[in-house]
């Protein structure tokens, strides 16, 4: 969980706490409390002692005693109850016999106690209990578990897990439980025996063991990892996770996190000193952070490096980067400011490098991207530039000249693992300028705009035409215009407000020769609404396509008049070329481009549909289409199916779900929102062209209320024919260890719509 930058006094929320326990009532000063004694019979020696028999009930401040016979010495408010006694104190229930308790200081002892601690939902019994003060008690030969000891019918039942100790000390003020000579049993099987063992009682961050997890995969064998959490300070913590892999040997993962008012930082590392399979050391290192030492300055860094090129095959889950074979090292510094009323400026510098995990198999090699080594720039922009709000123009807007300028120098280098065939390194100085005169009105808008893209290059190895220096300037003129109509209508019998928003974009860019110039950061945009209404089909700086074209299209929205929710949206966009482009990502001599149909619907509550189809009018066939359906009736209940088709390239079905399977819904003792319930989440990607499952991931989670079992099976391809099947299991005993790192974090990163169980605020899902 990345630390969120917090202000100075805010508590450091580094680890998500578990469900909030019932807060104990603040123990008032006992001394100024009256003592009320009820019984069948009583004899009192004035001001000295009181004896009571028969259904005795003694209330003193927050403490309530129930017993059959009671002797109380009034001078030191000491209570003696020989027989069975029940004590309720700060929400905890304690029962036993032969009580002696000095009520003011809350010191005393009780024999054969059984207890249930409200703060943790934990309960147990012991031979003897010593009260050591308002919030501290110590029990000899004690047991402790957060599992219920009585089933629904009230029959006593053995707890699923139990900690048996020679001595157990519970300190509710410091939220710490210490056990000596402890044996932990789960379903009767001894899991852990430790001479001394401490565990957190509340949710506050305490140093201690986190739930261990066990995993297995066919490349590393069985893996056992037991994390230990260090609560270093209010604003810093660390987690050390020693692990052992049957095939590869011993190692350790580590994480240190720090937070301060002006920034946060995180260091993650993994070290496998001697990998028996590969024979050498395997390590991974990730450093990330963000800092804002003074207003306007923003410093960010995120770097990740691993020891070897096969790291992604063997230890994939220890790579944090979403692209396992392309690891970025990125340092960004930006200073923001304003000049007078009308101008904002931003000076920035950046170094971006890559570690490419290259392979030897030809088909899977990576063409390495360029590195910014460094990048230095200055951006100026007029303040209050109003972006076009997706068909929602707020109000009459006086036409006002707006513009922007970007001056930037880049030295592009190639990472070490770049292929020999890749084009050379070089330097570029560029300027991107634009000037616009937007006229905006709720019913229409007209934005004439002039763009200028100037770039000067310097390369060491001469270009195709022998030059080592080159420059060019490409101007672009464009007019963006649109209208907005509305009418009241009905759809499927429901009153609707329908909007119709036609839009035109005329772009005129002269041809400028760029074929021989280096291309460091330009590429074809995907075919979508944003790219059709863009003035350049290339992204980046290095390529500006010549164009005299008109993009035209319309969007129609059906809105609910009551709450303004968009229930249905249909869109159509196409482009007409007045002359064929000489420089374009994909040469296309057709006058009319492919047509893009987009839509999104949320007509019936838990159903969401959206899609986009790129349709070729000439051969009446779709070039590319993405259709998605999602059924999301509530939190933890979502099933989404996506169909992605790319003509002659790929056709893929992607099923993702999170769904409770079985078991009862109810609130368990420890406040968890579900008891005895199976949850499943997962994702399966099926390639219809290769008719095989490419990647799949299944997570199962059983929450019995007092323990949570997490299991995960993951199948990741690691080569054209190889795959790595990975299995993971984690047992968590609620109340014995703070909710630790959820081993199924991989679900959160890979299942769209997955909601971790710990956060269960129910909410209706509508856009």
């Amino acid at each position, binding site marked *: 969980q990345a630390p969120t930058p917090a202000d100075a006094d805010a508590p450091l929320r580094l680890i998500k706490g578990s469900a909030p326990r019932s807060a104990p009532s603040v123990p008032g000063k006992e001394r100024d409390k009256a003592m009320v004694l009820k019984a069948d019979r009583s004899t009192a020696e004035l001001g000295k002692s009181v004896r009571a028999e028969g259904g005795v009930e003694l209330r003193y401040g927050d403490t309530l005693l129930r017993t059959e016979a009671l002797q109380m010495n009034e001078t030191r408010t000491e209570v003696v109850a020989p027989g069975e006694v029940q004590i309720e104190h700060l929400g905890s229930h304690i029962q036993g016999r032969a009580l002696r308790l000095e009520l003011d200081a809350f010191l005393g002892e009780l024999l054969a106690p059984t207890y249930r601690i409200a703060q943790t939902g934990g309960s147990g019994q012991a031979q003897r209990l010593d009260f050591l003060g308002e919030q501290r008690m110590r029990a000899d030969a004690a047991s402790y578990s957060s599992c219920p000891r009585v089933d629904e019918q009230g029959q006593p039942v053995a707890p699923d897990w139990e900690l048996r100790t020679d001595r157990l000390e519970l300190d509710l003020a410091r939220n710490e439980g210490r056990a000596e000579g402890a044996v932990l049993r789960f379903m009767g099987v001894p899991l852990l025996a430790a001479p001394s063992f401490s565990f957190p009682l509340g949710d506050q961050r305490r140093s201690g063991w986190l739930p261990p997890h066990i995993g297995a995969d066919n490349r590393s064998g069985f893996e056992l990892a037991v994390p230990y959490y260090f609560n270093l300070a209010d604003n810093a913590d660390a987690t050390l996770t020693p692990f052992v892999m049957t095939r590869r040997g011993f190692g350790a993962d580590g994480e240190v996190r720090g937070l301060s008012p002006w920034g946060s930082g995180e260091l993650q590392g993994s070290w496998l000193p001697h990998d028996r399979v590969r024979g050498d050391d395997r390590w991974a290192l990730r450093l990330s952070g963000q800092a804002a030492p003074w207003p306007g300055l923003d410093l960010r860094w995120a770097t990740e490096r691993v020891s070897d090129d096969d790291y992604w095959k063997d230890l994939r889950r220890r790579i944090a980067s979403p692209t396992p074979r392309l690891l970025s090292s990125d340092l960004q510094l930006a200073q923001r400011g304003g000049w007078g009323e009308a101008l904002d400026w931003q000076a920035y510098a950046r170094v971006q490098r890559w570690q490419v995990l290259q392979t030897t198999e030809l088909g899977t090699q990576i063409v390495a991207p360029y590195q910014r080594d460094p990048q230095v720039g200055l951006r100026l922009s007029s303040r209050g530039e109003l972006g076009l709000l997706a068909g929602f123009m707020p109000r009459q807007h006086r036409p006002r000249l707006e513009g922007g300028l970007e001056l930037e120098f880049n030295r592009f280098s190639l990472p070490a693992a770049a292929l020999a065939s890749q084009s050379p390194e070089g330097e570029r100085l560029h300027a991107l300028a634009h000037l616009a005169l937007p006229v905006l009105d709720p019913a229409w808008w007209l934005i004439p705009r002039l763009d200028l893209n100037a770039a000067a290059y310097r390369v060491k190895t001469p270009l195709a035409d022998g030059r080592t220096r080159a420059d060019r300037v490409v101007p672009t003129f464009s007019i963006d215009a649109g*209208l907005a109509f509305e009418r009241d*209508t009905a759809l499927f019998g429901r009153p609707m407000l329908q909007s119709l928003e036609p839009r035109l974009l005329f772009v005129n860019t002269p041809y400028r020769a760029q074929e021989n110039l280096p291309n460091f950061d330009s590429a074809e945009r995907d075919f979508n609404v*944003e790219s059709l209404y863009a003035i350049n089909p290339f992204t980046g700086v290095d390529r500006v396509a010549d164009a005299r074209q008109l993009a035209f299209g319309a969007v129609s929205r059906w809105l609910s008049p009551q709450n303004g929710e968009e229930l249905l949206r249909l869109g159509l966009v196409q482009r007409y070329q007045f002359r064929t482009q000489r420089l374009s990502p994909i040469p296309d001599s057709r006058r009319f481009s492919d047509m893009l149909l987009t839509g999104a619907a949320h007509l019936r509550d838990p159903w969401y549909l959206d899609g986009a189809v790129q349709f070729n009018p000439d051969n009446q066939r779709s070039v590319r289409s993405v259709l998605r359906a999602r059924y999301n009736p509530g939190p933890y209940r979502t099933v989404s199916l996506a169909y992605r088709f790319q003509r002659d390239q790929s056709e893929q079905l992607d099923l993702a779900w999170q769904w409770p399977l079985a078991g009862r819904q109810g609130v368990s003792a420890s406040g968890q929102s579900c008891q005895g319930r199976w949850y499943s989440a997962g994702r399966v990607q099926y390639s219809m062209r290769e008719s095989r499952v490419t990647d799949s991931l299944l997570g199962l989670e059983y929450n019995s209320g007092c323990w949570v079992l997490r299991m995960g099976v993951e199948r990741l391809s690691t080569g054209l024919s190889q795959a790595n099947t990975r299995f993971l299991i984690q047992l968590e005993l609620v109340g014995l260890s703070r909710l630790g790192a959820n081993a199924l974090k991989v679900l959160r990163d890979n299942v769209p719509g997955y909601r971790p169980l710990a956060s269960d605020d129910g909410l209706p899902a509508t856009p």
Partner: protein
Amino acid sequence: CGFAPRGAPRFEFERLALVGFPSSSPVRDALVRALSSLPMGVVAAPQSQVVLEVQREEHSKVAVASTAAGQVREWQLQLVMEYRVTTPGDELLLPLTQMRLTRDLTTTEAIALAKEREEAELRRAMVQDAVALLMRRLAALKPSR
């Protein structure tokens, strides 16, 4: 066919409070810019008539297509927001609802720099969509009800 040019949106309140956004939130910055052209003041909660409380604003991306050799070929960019609207006195005007916007983005390693700019543009487009959806929700509110 009944279509008429759209009129300016009428908001039934002038003082709005924006609460709960993460410390650096593109949606809040875009919303403030959009509201600046309206007769609408963004004020602190106690002085406001309507409080837009955002409990979650998550910009994330999930790899939805990869090659057999661990190369990502397509991302699904996501903007998930959970928000509710109340009066300063915490009377519920719009229950907690979730907004989920997505954009697809193909990618290959060689053009990582170009795709980085395209991702930034698509995320700006999603933020504009989110602001438009929020503004429509606010325009439909009747706090004086």
